[in-house]
């Protein structure tokens, strides 16, 4: 095997690093503390570089950065602690529309997304359906050339900054649940939509969005009527290339080491010289190396067009579970000062480790809980029967 990146990807990495070193400023990092994990400024600069467009497959009209280059971009963004979630949604959304959308959607929505003018939001989850996403109850009823949509979506993160939501609706209640779903791209300025903030333990803002007799022309439909489950599979495929989070532990370990090199224990010894601390750091660094090969494998699979398997589930499961473990280890090492939040002058490393501790628990939940991913590995990789 060959784990080296092709020269094009390495050159791109150099370019990305230079760009991020310049543009991921303290102000951009500070901006995240508003709870909206996004920087319009950075996002638009990246769009101007052609990187959003670049992520879209060439055959779909994109800029033809391959999956390895995109994985390099995502990796570097995480190492620079730049916000990645909103960008990921934009790329996924544009790709899905380019693959499955009609000409209207391709012309109307995609350019705005890729130019960095508009953000998107995922509208899959509902108050009563999370892991069981196919149980969506938001109703879309046909009325001539229009659809009338009623329902509620949860975890529509970025909705308050976004122009569009990709909405999973139920169009047929008389068939098995997977067979009565239809997708729409819904502009948030359509009358009848209300957005309410949902605040979290990580101090990030998500949203609940409410749809009250929202009327939408049929041209906003994405994919076939009752064909939503096929669209969902395409959506998952595009998340494979751009899913982030594999390197969450990298800045955490970096900060912990930096702190441990400077901080002295009450007995005067440096934290970095504590063998128990050293053992945990080494274990975390090994885990991170595993995250790296997992992520590389996912990117490689996408680059060579390998059939979509459970690699994404494995990567996400391992990276998020170890991140949660590491964040718990490292906040402990800081002692009582580990509790201090960003903004407090004595907070070790500006409170980043404390933030990681509060953020980590959601990473084993969102985008497929660890339980769902273990189900997928058991069924898809080990060939065990569906547990339910």
């Amino acid at each position, binding site marked *: 095997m060959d784990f080296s990146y092709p020269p094009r990807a390495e050159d791109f990495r150099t370019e990305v690093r230079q760009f991020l070193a310049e543009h991921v400023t303290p102000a951009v990092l500070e901006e995240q503390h508003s709870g909206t994990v996004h920087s319009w400024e950075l996002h638009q600069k990246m769009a101007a570089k052609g990187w959003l467009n670049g992520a879209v497959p060439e055959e779909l009209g994109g800029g033809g950065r391959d999956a390895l280059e995109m994985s390099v971009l995502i990796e570097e963004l995480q190492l620079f602690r730049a916000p990645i979630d909103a960008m990921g949604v934009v790329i996924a959304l544009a790709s899905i529309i380019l693959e499955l959308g009609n000409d209207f959607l391709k012309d109307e929505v995609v350019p705005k997304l890729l130019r960095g003018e508009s953000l998107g939001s995922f509208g899959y989850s509902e108050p009563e359906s999370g892991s069981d996403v196919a149980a969506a109850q938001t109703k879309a009823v046909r009325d001539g050339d229009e659809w009338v949509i009623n329902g509620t979506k949860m975890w529509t993160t970025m909705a308050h900054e976004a122009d569009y939501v990709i909405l999973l609706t139920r169009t047929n209640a008389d068939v098995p649940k997977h067979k009565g779903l239809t997708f729409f791209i819904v502009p948030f300025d359509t009358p009848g939509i209300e957005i309410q903030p949902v605040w979290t*333990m990580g101090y990030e803002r998500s949203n609940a969005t409410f749809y009250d007799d929202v009327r939408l022309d049929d041209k906003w439909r994405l994919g076939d009527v009752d064909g939503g489950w096929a669209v969902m599979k395409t959506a998952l495929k595009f998340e494979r290339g751009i899913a982030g989070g594999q390197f969450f532990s990298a800045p955490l370990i970096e900060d912990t080491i930096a702190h441990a090199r400077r901080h002295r224990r009450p007995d005067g010894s440096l934290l970095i010289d504590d063998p128990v601390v050293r053992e945990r750091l080494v274990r975390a660094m090994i885990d991170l190396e595993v995250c790296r090969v997992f992520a590389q494998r996912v990117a490689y699979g996408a680059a060579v067009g390998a059939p979509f398997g459970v690699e994404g589930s494995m990567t996400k499961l391992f990276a998020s579970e170890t991140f949660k473990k590491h964040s718990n280890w490292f906040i*402990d090492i800081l002692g009582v000062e580990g509790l201090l939040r960003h903004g407090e002058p*004595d907070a070790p490393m500006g409170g980043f480790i404390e933030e990681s501790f509060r953020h980590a*628990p959601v990473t084993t*939940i969102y985008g497929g809980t660890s*339980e769902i991913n273990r189900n997928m590995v058991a069924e898809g990789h080990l060939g065990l029967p569906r547990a339910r």
Partner: protein
Amino acid sequence: MRLELTEDEETVREVFAGFFAQESSIEVVRASEPVGFDLGLWTKLAQTGAPGMAVSEAAGGGGATLADLAVVATEAGRRLAPVPLVEHAVATRLVAAAAPADSSLGSLIAGDQVGILALAPAVDGVARLVPGGSAANVVVGLDGDDLVIVAGEPPAGPANTGHAALADRDLRAEGRRVIGGASHYARARAEWQALTASALVGLGHQALDIGVEYVMQRQQFDVPVGSFQAVQHGLATASVDMEGAEYLAHKAVWALASGHADADNMASMAFLFAAESAQAAAAASLQYHGGYGYSDEYDIQLYFRRAKSMTLVHGDPGLEIRSLADRLLGPVGTGASA
């Protein structure tokens, strides 16, 4: 041997379970954020006699046992009560034992003043990030070899993970009195560990109760989430640990109260085990809430955060393990001779 609460303790438990359920409702807990202290709740708690309950009647206290106090601490932990009850009770017992004539004792027993214990010795006279530090008027702590007591207005404290009422406190402030030495301090610290273990037991049990209630009510794939075996086993594992933590905390309290030679180690063990178990219980319960567990709206995240802060106010658990190793195995360098 008796491994159940006495009738008296059971009465105490019922009374304070009711008290905290009523007065430290989740709304009260949330309203106390980010300060982490509710003076109204403290005032009501003082009216119950809890702040001085475990000081002897001779010294003007309630004459209750340490075990009674532990029962109250468990109920306070269960409701995340935003009052430094354990810190106050320990500090007050310490003053009563070391300096029964100290002018502060009466008001501490009555709860007219909030007293706390600095868990780590002061550095340059300052006790760092003391739990209850942003709530207490009276601080007891170790400055060099001196156990000192100082009074003063609590400063505002820093924002932190679990909205704990933390603040630095100056142990050399005007009016400071030396009231004893390191041995009194060690005893108080062991009591803090055992009672905080009890509080963490309440917290962990309630975190699991919240989780069980949620997974029974929440349906996915047309069945309750709680009918999935992976969820059941995660909760079962956590609940076994909590059960062990509960009895270990009881044992530590018993060991301290009965003058067991190993009581300090027992308190340390009980604290470490309860801290890890309560954190794991809250984390498991949060996980099985799915996204809601992470949202401010649901209560489990409060338990998750406070389990961590109730632990870390004592410092890195790794340091406590190191200290316990020195006591149980002998200090490093003495192995061959021990």
